Structure formats: structure tokens, C-alpha cells
């Protein structure tokens, strides 16, 4: 932290100087007069420092404009347009700023966490005190997107094709994929890219955590046509009706989700329940976990999926 405090002060003084300059400030003027730059050890050190600061200010929403003197093209100057950086008038109610405070705490361990906190600070500057109201006690914690997110979002915005190395889930091997990126979505604690896979000539989804290394841009901006889609990915499917034979006093959580549905196909000593699922494979995962407490009566595909798991698990003890 020791070296960060002076950096913050230098950045602040640079902002103030560049917003107050009549026309523009050249690098030489900045180095000679702005607090924090005067002690740069060399030209190179100053250049590095200034370039980094400029990028950082842009990322913070403070656009540093480059102005060239018409008479001397080498003579570059800079300024910040206050009109450009001003937040449009907005009035949040205490309840709204309360919900935004809640939103700013959603992200764990990713750049989203710092981004949303900083955004909230900007909004709090123009707001009255927050009132959590009906959102009191509610707390959502979601893992923020993986490193590739920012590059992919920018590529979607620019409608440009990307290429990246992807680890296939089925084999674990990696290969280069070329994709026209369409959308990003969060589901079940994971982040996904949906797009058109050029080599496979079809729509595919990619888990961001399986993208290895950098996302590179290939092709030209503006060339990607993104199909309209109002629905959330992936498409909702028709729910499947499931019938289960549950041992007495067992699997109470499953019983609570379904309803008793006695039928002729029941098993003696067990109670029959009916429930619906949107995802059979996932339900199979859960049902296998219940062991002998639950027997799947219907549908046969679900029963097969559970039996596959149980047979595999039965070999784990070493006695097969």
C-alpha cells in the first residue's frame, strides 16, 4: 500500500490540472508543474508513469483527450473535458440506492467486484442515504466472470470474431476455436459465451473458465451478425414428469418438492411421488445421491441415468 497513496494523489492532481487547463497541457508542462511528476527520474520513467495514469483515468470514466497543435504535429497536448465526464442528472430514492448497494456486493473475486463498488461510489455521491427497506437481510453472492469476460464483451460490442484456446469438457484436450461471439450469460455459478463456432458451423456455448490464455480478435469489426434472442440461454425445455418410489421417512426434501401420486406401478413398502424437472441428467445426479431411499419408476431414461451412476459407484470400494 505504501506506494499507492502517492499514486492516488498524483492522479487526482493530474485530473484537476487537466480539467483546469485553458486549452491543453503538453507532456513537458505536465512533468514540470503537476504534483507527483516532477520527481520522475528519467524521460522514460515519466513517459511510463504518464501513459499508465492516462489509461487508468480513461478506465475510471475520465476521458483524457489528446489534442495536436495544428502548426506543430509532434507537439501533443492533453485535457479532460468536464462536460464529457459528467454523470447525467439522476435521482435515486433511498430505497433504490439501497438496492444498488446490495447489487454492488454481489460479485465475489473478480474485477466485477471492484467495478461495481466504484460505480456505487459514483452514484452515492449524488444520492441521499440508502434505505435497505424490504431488501434488508438479503444477500446475493455470485462468483464474478472469468478473465476472458472483458475481452469477449468488447468483441461482442465491436462485432468482431475471436479465437481462443478451449479445453473440451469431454476429453480435457485443448484446441483453438474460432467463434463469432453473440452473448455472455451466467448460469449455475458459471459464465458462458454463446456464439457461432466457425469450424463446427453452428451455435455453441463455451464455459469461460475453460478458455485457456488470451482471447484474440481476428477478422474485422462489424462483421458479426448477432441473431435476435429475447429468451435467456439456454432455451427452456418442457418439464419432464417423474415418478419416484420413496422409502418411508426418507428423502423428505424430494417429497416436499413433489406430491403423493399412488399408482399401480408402486413398490410395496414405498410411497409414490410425482414431480417435474427441467433437466433429467441433473435430477439423476441428485437421485443417485439418495441411494436406496429413492427408486425411479418413470421415465425409463431417468432410471437408466441413475442406474449408470450407481453401477459406477458400486465399483469404487475396490471389491467391484
Amino acid at each position: 500500500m505504501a506506494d499507492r497513496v502517492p499514486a492516488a494523489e498524483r492522479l487526482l492532481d493530474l485530473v484537476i490540472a487537466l480539467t483546469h487547463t485553458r486549452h491543453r497541457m503538453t507532456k513537458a508542462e505536465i512533468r514540470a508543474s503537476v504534483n507527483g511528476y516532477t520527481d520522475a527520474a528519467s524521460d522514460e520513467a515519466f513517459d511510463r508513469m504518464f501513459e499508465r495514469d492516462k489509461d487508468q483515468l480513461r478506465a475510471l470514466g475520465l476521458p483524457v483527450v489528446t489534442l495536436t497543435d495544428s502548426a506543430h504535429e509532434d507537439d501533443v497536448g492533453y485535457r479532460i473535458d468536464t462536460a464529457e465526464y459528467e454523470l447525467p442528472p439522476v435521482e435515486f430514492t433511498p430505497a433504490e440506492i439501497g438496492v444498488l448497494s446490495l447489487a454492488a456486493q454481489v460479485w465475489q473475486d473478480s474485477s466485477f467486484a471492484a467495478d461495481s463498488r466504484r460505480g456505487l461510489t459514483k452514484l452515492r455521491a449524488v444520492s441521499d442515504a440508502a434505505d435497505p427497506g424490504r431488501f434488508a437481510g438479503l444477500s446475493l453472492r455470485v462468483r464474478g466472470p472469468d478473465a476472458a469476460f472483458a475481452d469477449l464483451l468488447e468483441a461482442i460490442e465491436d462485432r468482431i470474431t475471436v479465437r481462443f484456446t478451449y479445453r473440451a469438457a469431454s476429453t480435457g484436450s485443448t484446441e483453438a476455436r474460432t467463434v463469432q461471439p453473440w452473448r455472455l450469460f451466467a448460469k449455475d455459478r458459471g459464465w458462458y459465451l454463446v456464439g457461432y463456432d466457425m469450424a463446427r458451423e453452428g451455435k455453441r456455448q463455451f464455459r469461460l473458465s475453460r478458455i485457456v490464455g488470451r482471447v484474440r480478435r481476428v477478422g474485422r469489426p462489424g462483421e458479426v451478425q448477432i441473431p435476435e434472442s429475447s429468451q435467456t440461454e439456454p432455451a427452456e425445455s418442457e418439464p419432464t414428469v417423474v415418478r419416484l418410489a420413496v422409502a418411508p421417512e426418507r428423502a423428505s426434501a424430494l417429497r416436499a418438492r413433489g406430491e403423493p401420486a399412488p399408482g399401480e406401478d408402486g413398490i410395496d413398502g414405498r410411497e409414490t411421488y410425482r414431480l417435474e424437472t427441467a433437466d433429467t441428467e441433473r435430477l439423476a445426479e441428485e437421485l443417485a445421491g439418495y441411494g436406496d431411499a429413492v427408486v425411479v419408476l418413470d421415465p425409463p431414461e431417468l432410471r437408466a441415468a441413475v442406474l449408470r451412476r450407481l453401477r459406477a459407484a458400486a465399483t469404487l470400494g475396490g471389491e467391484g
Partner: protein
Amino acid sequence: MAQSAGDRVVQMLALITYLDAHPGVPVEQVAEHFGISTGRVLQDVSTLWVSGTPGYLPDDLIDFSADDRERNILTLTQARGMNRPLRLGAQEAVALLTALRSLQVTPGLATDPVLTSAMDKLTEAAGAAARSAQAVQVAGPDDTGEQVAEHLTTVRAAIADQQRLHLRYVSAADVVSERDVDPLQLLTDGTRWLLVGWCYRAQDVRQFRLDRILELTEAGAPAAAHPDVALSADTEPELTEAPWQVRLVLASPARWVAEQYPVTAVQDLEDARFAVDLAVLDLAWLHHLVLGIAEDVLAVEPADVATGIADRARAALEAYRAAGLDDADETDPPPPLG
């Protein structure tokens, strides 16, 4: 929490904007408003006080009332034109809007008027910065069920009204219990919902998964205050006291296990297999996990844990055999992702 230089610049500029509109605010109130410590507010004020336009003579500097400052009150007397509020950067807008959308897919919040109006105003204020957020979607959890949605409504109301709850709960080990709980917090990781509360039976803070609550009613008594309870913001349980260290050797399709669970180590092995070390609090939880993904589990250590899982699987197969239902056709699993 580490604060970058950029974050601090934004915080200092936000202070000028806020103090310019609110003269004479006590330091504590400013700290509370921005959710930072009073020490940090005072540190930022000290920095602002010596900042200004080049030359840095008294007239060039941002200024505060020194008399007020001595009384722990902040009054900005010279903003040097830096009082304009900062617009949102694209990343900030996307992060906040996506967070609001994550809240919106919560059962019962889809049409919440405060959430909706906050989203509309934020989108409007962010302007172009909000545009790229349109390419980001958030899906709600599957299979949440009506019951979880009902529980959510009941728990939220009980937290707001400070009412004690009575619940019938089934643990991961399939044991049902009745408990009185003072609700403190609702947590979600985007997949499961957890009620954090003071449990009278355990005489301690406990987490309850909403999808395991069988019945939920108000207990008919006000909730007691629990000022000594420090709420964790984390949906993962504390693993420091986990009694079992289990190693799973997994085939590649189960890579999501390393991504979704708090594994203490991941080791890549040949043929795209890999091993994860898990700190396990509750063997019932591990049994559920391993049985569910058994086709991709190649080995479990230690051996007695593996044997326990295999025994459970054999008992289940026996139940299917006894019912004459163990001859279901082998079908292919669905095509994998990507």
C-alpha cells in the same frame, strides 16, 4: 480490502461532489454514506486539502473549513470546480446492471418496483456505457420450485418484521428436525438459497438450505437481537474444522467440480484426468456428490470413505433389483458442452 489508486481517486472526487451538495455533515455520517471507515474519510480529506491546480498556492487548492473539521464536521469551502459527478465507466455499468439482473431472477423479485426503477434509472444514467450490458444475460436457477419461492417470501418478511421462524428441516444426511430460528440473513450463490439464523436448538448460528426446509411458519414471537453474531458474507461453509480430507480422482467431464466446490488442491494427471482434494464437513454431502457423478469418479481416498460410498450404491442397486427395475436399457449420456 485493498483499494487501488484509481478507486481512491474516484472516492475523493465523489467526496467533493457529495460535500459540495451537503455542507456541514458529520464525519461519521459521510463514512456511513459511502460505506468506508471514518479514518479513510479523514485521510481522503487531508489529501484533497493539499490538492489543486499547478502552482499549489493557497488559492489553487481545494479547501475545507478548519473550524468545522476540528468539530468532526466536514464543510467544503472551495471545490475548485471539481464538484461535477463522474459518469459511469462501461465496466462499472456492466457490473452493476448484471448484479441487478442477478437479483431480478430471484423468485419474487422479478417485478419488484424498486429493483425495476433502480435498473431503469441506472441504464439511463449510464448512457452508452450501459449498451454493452445488453449482451450479458443472467439465468435463474432451475428447479427452484414453488416451495423455495414461498419460503423466500416468508423469510424476507420475517427478517423485515424481526419475527422468529419455526421450521421443519431435513439435513444432508436425511434427518428431519424441528427448529426455532431467529432469521438474520438470506444468502445465495445464485444456485441455492441459504437462511442464516440463530438456531435455538443448536444455540448457535446455523445455515439452512431453503430447498431442505419442509415447513416454514412464523413462530409467533419476535426475534431476539443477536448483536454479537458476525455474519459471514460467504455462501461456502467454514472449512477449517472439516473432519475429512478426501481426494477424488476424476475424469475430465467432472472438471466443474474443481470449479464449483471449495477444493483445497487440484492436480492435473495424465489422459486429462485430474485429482481434487476436498475438505469435507459432512460425509452425507460427499456421498451425494460422488454418487451423482460416479461415472466420472475414478478413485476415492481414503479407502473407508470409498467403501462407504460403494456400499450405498450396492444397497440402491439391490432396491432396484428387488423391484425388478434394474434392467433399464443403457442409453448414451447427452452430448457434452462445447
